[in-house]
C-alpha cells in the first residue's frame, strides 16, 4: 500500500515541476486538477482501512480539487481571454531549477526531521514541503492573477499532504470545513479576477500598484 502511495506522491512531485515549467495557463490549471485528483486517492490510502467517512473525504477531495475548482478557473480563464503567462518575474527554466533545488532541499531536510517510523521511509513529508515551496514560487513569480490562484491551490495541496500524516486527528467535520473554505476562497478569487479584468483591461497584477506609501 505504501508503495502505491509513494508512486502517487512521485506523480505529485512531477506535476509540481510541470506547473513551474509551462507557460500555458490552461496546462497549469490542468496540472493542479490532476494533482488534486491524485491527492484524493492518496488520502484514501492514508486512512489505512476504507470506511464510509474516509471514502466521503476522498470523493469530496477529488470532486472539489479535481473537477469543480479547475472548472471555475477554466471559466475565469475563458471569460478574461488569457492563454499564456507572459514574462514571469523569473523565467520558466530558472524557476524550474529553483523548484528542483527546493525539492532536493525538502528531501534532505525531512531526513533530518524527527519522524515516526512509518513516515520516515515514506515520501509524505518531503512531498508536502516541496509542494508548499512550489506553490510559493508560483505565487510570487507569476504575474497573472489566475496563475497566482493556482499557486495558492498548489500551496494548499502541500499543506493537505502534511495533513495526511494526521488523518486520525482531523475530525470529519473539520476536514469538510477546510475543503469548503478552499472552495469559497477560489470562488471569491474568481469573481475578483473577473472584476480586475474589467477594471484594468488586464490580469497583470503588476498593474495593481496604485496603493503605496
Amino acid at each position, binding site marked *: 500500500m505504501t508503495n502505491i502511495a509513494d508512486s502517487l506522491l512521485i506523480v505529485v512531485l512531477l506535476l509540481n515541476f510541470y506547473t513551474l515549467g509551462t507557460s500555458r495557463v490552461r496546462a497549469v490549471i490542468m496540472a493542479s486538477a490532476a494533482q488534486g485528483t491524485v491527492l484524493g486517492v492518496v488520502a484514501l490510502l492514508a486512512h489505512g482501512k476504507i470506511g464510509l467517512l474516509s471514502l466521503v473525504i476522498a470523493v469530496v477531495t477529488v470532486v472539489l480539487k479535481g473537477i469543480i475548482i479547475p472548472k471555475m478557473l477554466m471559466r475565469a480563464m475563458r471569460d478574461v481571454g488569457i492563454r499564456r503567462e507572459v514574462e514571469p518575474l523569473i523565467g520558466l527554466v530558472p524557476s524550474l531549477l529553483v523548484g528542483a533545488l527546493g525539492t532536493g532541499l525538502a528531501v534532505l531536510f525531512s531526513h533530518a526531521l524527527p519522524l515516526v517510523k512509518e513516515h520516515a521511509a515514506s515520501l509524505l513529508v518531503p512531498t508536502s514541503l516541496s509542494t508548499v515551496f512550489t506553490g510559493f514560487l508560483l505565487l510570487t513569480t507569476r504575474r497573472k492573477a489566475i496563475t497566482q490562484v493556482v499557486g495558492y491551490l498548489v500551496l494548499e495541496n502541500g499543506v493537505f499532504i502534511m495533513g495526511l500524516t494526521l488523518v486520525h486527528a482531523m475530525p470529519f467535520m473539520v476536514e469538510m470545513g477546510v475543503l469548503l473554505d478552499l472552495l469559497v476562497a477560489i470562488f471569491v478569487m474568481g469573481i*475578483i479576477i473577473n472584476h480586475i479584468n474589467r477594471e484594468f483591461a488586464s490580469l497583470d497584477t503588476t498593474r495593481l500598484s496604485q496603493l503605496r506609501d
Partner: protein
Amino acid sequence: MAWLLVLVPLAFALIAFAVRSDRVRPWVVATAGMVQLPLVFLALRRQHVEGLNGWLQLDALGKVVLGFTTILFAACACYVPGYLNQRREGNSRMFCTALLAFFAVLTLITETHHLGLLWVAIEASTLSTAPMLYFHRTPRSLEAIWKYLLIGSVGIALALMGCFFLGYASLYAGHEPSLELSELIENAPFMSKSWLHAAFIFLLVGYGTKMGLAPMHTWKPDAYGEAPGVVGTLLAGGLTSGAFLAILRVYRIVVAAGEADFARKPLIALGLISMLVAGVFMARQKDFKRMLAYSSVEHMGILVLGIGIGGGAVFGALLHMVNNGLTKGVLFLSAGNIHRAYASKSTDEVRGALRRAPYSAGLFLAGFFAITGSPPFGPFLSEFTILQSAMASHQYAIVGAFLVMLIIVFIGMGSTVLAVVQGEPGPLPDRPTSNERFLTIAPSVFLLAIVLMLGVYVPAPLNNLLRVAAQSLEGR
C-alpha cells in the same frame, strides 16, 4: 447556548439576504446588534457555556474577546443604517449579509476549543470580510481586496501547516494525535520539542499575518485605507483580536510544554518590529485612513510584546486588546464621517474638520489622544501596566525601545490628525454642509465613553475575567 450565540447573527444574515428593500435591510443589521448584545452578556454571566462535545467552550479568555467585540459590533450595527443612507451606490445586500456572517464567524472564533475548527473559522472570517471591502467598487478597492485575499490566504495556509505540526508533535511522542485544546495542553509536556517549536513559528507567522504584525502587515494599509469606516472597525477591533486569540491559544500549549522562554523571543521581536514599522510609516502619512492602519500595526505589536514580556504584562496586554479594539471603533467610525464630508481622505484636501464636521472631528481628536496612550483614557492604563511589569522584571532595553516608539508614533500620528482637524476648510465640492446624523455620531460617543471609563476604573467582572485569563495563559 454556545450554538445560539453563533446562530443568531447567522439567522440575521439570512434575513438580511432575503429582505428586498434597501431601506429595511440596514435596520435588520441594527436589530441584530440589539439582540446579540444582551444575549452575549447573558452568556458571559453563566459559569458554563458549552456545546458540541466540548469543542465550543466559553472560557475567561474567550469571554473577554467575545464581550468587547460584541459591544463593538453593536455600535457598528447602529452605525450601519445612517451610513448606508448616505452611501446608496454600493451593494447593500452583500454588505449587510457579509457583515452579519462575519460576526457569526467571529463569535465562533471566541468559543471554539478545537484548533481545526478555529482555523476554519478564521479562514471564513477572511472570506466574509472580502465582499465588504469591495463595497465602493473602485479599482483601488479591487487592488486592496486582491492583496488582502491572497496574503491572508497564504498566511492562513501556513497556520494550517502549523496545526498539523502541532498534531505531529503529539504523534511523535507516541500519543494519540488530537487538535482539541484540552488534550493538547495535557499532552504538551511530552511533545516532541522540535515539532512544537516549528508549529509555534508557523502558527505565529500564519495568524500573525491575519493580525497584521510587521513584516506580514503589507495588506493592512491597503485594506483599511479602502474599506468603509465600519469595516475598518470590525477588522481592526474584531478580526485582529480574533487572530490574537488564536495565537494565545497556541501560546497556552507552548507554556504547558514548559517552552514559554522559546515562545517569548519571537513575540518580543515581532512586537518591536511592528511598533518600529508603524512609527516609520506613520510619519508624514497624508492618508488618514492608512495612518489608522499603521496605528493598528503598532498596537498589535504592543499586544504580542506584552505577552512576550510575561508576568503582569500579560494582564496588561489583554486589557490593551479591549482598549485598542474599542478605541479603534471611535477612530474608524469618525474617520469615515470625515471621509464622506470631504469625499477625500488625504490631508491635502481635508483641513479644518472641526468646522465642517465638528462632532466627528472632536471624536477623531479624542480617539487620537486615547490611542496614543494619553491619560485618562483606557490605553494609558494598559500600556502603563505593560511598562511597569517590564520594569519590574528588569527588561530595561524593551522599556526604552517601547517609550521611544510611543513618542515617535505620537508625533507622527499627531501631525496628521492635527492637519485634519485644524485650519480652515478649503474650497469644497458641492456637498451638504453637514452629514452628521445622530446614528453616525452616537456609536462613537458610546465607545469613547467606555474607553474613558476603562481608563478610570475597570469594572470588577471584567477585572476578574482578565485576571483568570492571564493566569491561565501563564499556566497557573
